[in-house]
């Protein structure tokens, strides 16, 4: 089991959402889940900090949400399908969120996808540099 989990850590730029991350991010992800209801989306938009206070998030998680730092939210246990509900509440497309996580402008990211996407070459393994 340890080998199964460790193997994924060799893949660059990728966080695998396993049971450990799921525990870590439980409340963060459940906060995201609450944004499926229009009245909750409205309450969050009206006062983000007050709305977040309803959930027992860590300070780090709370700050990452307020800063819309998606890579940080993922490191702190967020799962992208849950986090996408924050993006949807903000009125952003999934592609916009993806571009944010890669550090590219939305335009540059969109162009990369139109040109066939990010190549797996050089993106397979940290240890092998391949």
């Amino acid at each position: 089991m340890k080998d199964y989990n460790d193997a994924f850590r060799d893949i660059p730029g990728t966080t695998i959402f396993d049971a450990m991350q799921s525990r870590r991010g439980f409340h963060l992800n459940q906060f995201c889940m609450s944004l499926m209801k229009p009245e909750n989306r409205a309450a969050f938009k009206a006062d983000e900090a007050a709305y977040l206070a309803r959930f027992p998030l860590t300070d780090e998680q709370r700050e990452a949400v307020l800063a819309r730092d998606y890579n940080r939210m993922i490191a702190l246990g967020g799962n992208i399908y849950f986090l996408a509900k924050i993006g949807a509440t903000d009125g952003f497309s999934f592609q916009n969120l993806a571009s944010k996580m890669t550090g590219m402008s939305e335009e540059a990211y969109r162009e990369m996808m139109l040109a066939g996407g990010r190549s797996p070459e050089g993106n397979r393994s940290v240890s092998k540099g391949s």
Partner: protein
Amino acid sequence: MARITAGIACSHVPAIGAAIDNGRTGDDYWRPLFAGFEASKAWMREHTPDVVILVYNDHASAFSLDMIPTFAIGCAESFAPADEGWGPRPVPVVQGHADLACHIAQSTILDEFDMTVVNRMDVDHGLTVPLSLMFGQPEAWPCRVIPLAVNVVQYPPPTGRRCFALGRAIRRAVESFDEDLDVQVWGTGGMSHQLQGPRAGLINREFDTAFLDRLVGDPAALVALPHIEYVREAGSEAIELVMWLVMRGALDERVREVRRFYHVPASNTAVGHIILENDGAPRAAGDQP
């Protein structure tokens, strides 16, 4: 008796649903994708089944982190489109087939698959986008749909081999159902894509093409592919492809490829689609040899 007549695999990118719902299928960006499904829609009109068993994953819509069932079958009479954060998709309510679903649940459990039974559930883009791609925008979906949700969100998802074996068990269940029904099994999600982190946007056309080839001709080898290979080669969300193996498991060992389509990109994702018929099945007029 009920019978499996065909298997279909299809990506379920949410942006495809948004393009349909917002009338943007004719945009330059989307036109090639939707053109690629025209022949499939024509095939579907000739081969509309009584029931589709639609294998998909929920994306934090019906299942939060409260409960994470590995395999869950929808036994309700109907399933409403979920509000995923921007309001429900304006698509018809999905009509289930409770009798067949309950029969499949019982049969697969006795066949040693620990299936979760779901009696109330909304269905998200994972289920409704493939319906839109294959059926367009009807006022009501032209057949019953049994949702079969697979966890591919929290690792580990089920192995490819387990998914394939579930397909076999579903076939045994369908063929022991005492009603004259044409049933298709659809596997959805994929193909290569990664939606998270600095590696987002990964696409591997070579992997996807080989996956389609092996899905048709060498599924026995494909089921041995470990999760790490999906993630390394095709991105963390490409793991959805294990769901295609449920579909393949429900078909004969030898199948006929009726149709294949591949397109990059739809938003962040490589779209793959294939229609397979059992090789022993009679050919319909107009089918390609």
